[in-house]
């Protein structure tokens, strides 16, 4: 579009008034704004002691967990839907024949590279049995890259840690159970 296009309506700035040309009233205005912020409520929290408010933990996308069923078995059926949906290719599943009657396969190993993960939540969306879920744990740290690759046991232990605070998602929250 050219500047001369008739479709453009050009709006001129208002000419400066006396207060603006004097500059001082504007300076006072600026000072008043900063002084107000100087004493206003702080937006940051004292992190390790004070946890940030994260809204609804059921829809927060933090560290993954692998859910257990009533018999304390891993719920995952090793269908690879999460690994397929993952845009960061951070899920690595080795499937094997299930020892149980109710399903054909189960994951022999289930690894998530938390350093690669972009916490998009697509694995959670894809899972047909609600086995993988994102918790509201947000401070994920480790001392090495190897430590940040979570295996099946670790993901199950995340479930054990968070199952009381964050129950598995019900149907009205988008869960299929």
């Amino acid at each position, binding site marked *: 579009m*050219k*500047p*001369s296009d008739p479709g453009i309506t*050009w709006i001129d*700035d208002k000419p*400066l008034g*006396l207060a*603006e*040309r*004097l*500059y*001082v009233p504007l*300076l006072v205005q*600026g*000072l008043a*704004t*900063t*002084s107000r*912020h*100087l*004493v*206003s*409520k*702080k*937006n*940051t929290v*004292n992190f390790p002691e004070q946890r940030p408010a994260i809204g609804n933990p059921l829809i927060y996308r933090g560290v993954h967990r692998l859910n257990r069923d009533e018999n304390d078995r891993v719920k995952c059926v090793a269908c690879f839907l999460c690994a397929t949906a993952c845009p960061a290719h951070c899920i690595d599943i080795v499937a094997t024949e299930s020892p149980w009657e109710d399903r054909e396969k189960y994951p022999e190993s289930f690894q998530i590279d938390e350093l690669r993960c972009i916490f998009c939540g697509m694995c959670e969306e894809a899972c047909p049995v609600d086995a993988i879920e994102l918790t509201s744990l947000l401070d994920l740290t480790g001392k090495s890259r190897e430590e940040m690759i979570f295996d099946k046991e670790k993901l199950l232990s995340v479930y054990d840690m968070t199952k009381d605070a964050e129950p598995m998602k019900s149907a009205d929250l988008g869960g299929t159970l």
Partner: protein
Amino acid sequence: MTALLPSPETIAALVKIGLLVGGLMTAAAYLVLVERWIAAWVQDRRGPNRVGIPLTKIRLFGLGQPLADGLKIIFKEDFTPRHVDKVLYNAAPLALLTASLAIFAAIPFGSVLPPLNIPGLPDPVPFLVAPGLDVGVLWVFALSSIAVYGVLLGGWASNNKYGFLGGLRSSAQLVAYEIPLGLGLLGVVLATGSLQLDIIMNKQAETGLWYVFAQPLGFVVFLIASFAEAARLPFDLPEAEQELVGGYHTEYAGIKLLLFLVSEFLHMVTAAFLIVIMFLGGWHFWGITGSTQEVTWVGAFLRFGILSAKIFAVILFFMVVRWSWPRFRFDQLMNLAWKVMLPLGLLNLVVVATIEEFRPALQSALGNSLTTGVAVGVPWIIFFGGLICAGMLTPSSTDNRPIRTRDPFDQERHLEKDEPMNKPSSELVEA
């Protein structure tokens, strides 16, 4: 044997210098912390509040931060780039710091505290490094001008375009703002009749009329010029991070950088001292600090508190301003100095000179209180008049919008002028 020992006076002077330098360095370190706090609070953050007493879990609101900051920067690699002029590169921070520290020799703490009687010394020791310096004000100004050599040297010796530009800007800025600074000061010197900072302070305490009330125009001019002189926002062009990386200290690291940063803070402290001493009455506060003649220890304590409080308030103002107003462009900076500040400073000087000239005549005609009324009222009228004139004649904002009557994309205009480069592509194809 006795000839080798320094005289008691020398020892006293050395002790005073040690106290002053130590106190100033500590103050500068803590001002960095205060600045970080203010920066955080203005941005609705909390600021450094973790570091307390080392090796314990005691936090003390982060008061240990300066120690941590200092240790960190001292133990950093003192890297010297290969392309610098080694001698000047090393001399620059030293020159700057020496000048910034030497300024304080003339700052009068003398009338704040009573002279100390030390057994073995014939005379009481006054709390002033250079007592009764007749050229106090000149000394301060001379040294603060010398400080710019440090900046200039640093920028030039760095052999780096950003450093060079920073040094260049600094020199131009300081030359421009020394003049309004001097003009603001001249009014005070005229009214007092002395260049001694001590006497300037005492005069305000005697009359109870601070010069900020008697010379508002001079105060404003001096205040703005000291912002520029200390290279604080909105006049921090010599080291504008967004444009010049670090300005004159781009190539410096480790302890040399620390020296630059400390002297920058010392500049601000000097400016605050001068503003308080010359315009805000120094240690004087109505009804609290008593007469100028006798100083008791209680009075001294009060005076010290009031002086410190005033200086701290001015420094806080410096810091809040930093986060309130955007940086000037260089042409705006120069406009402000030469077209606004210089005339206003001259106007102030004329007003003060006129009032001082006719003060005796007024006093005999009108009496004392009415004379004071006139001596305060007239400068305030001139103050508002001068501000309005300055605002109307030389607005600090400039219209930088593109001129719309000339349309760069208008092809017909180019065709009229028969410029072959801008022919429509269809014609080129035919040709």
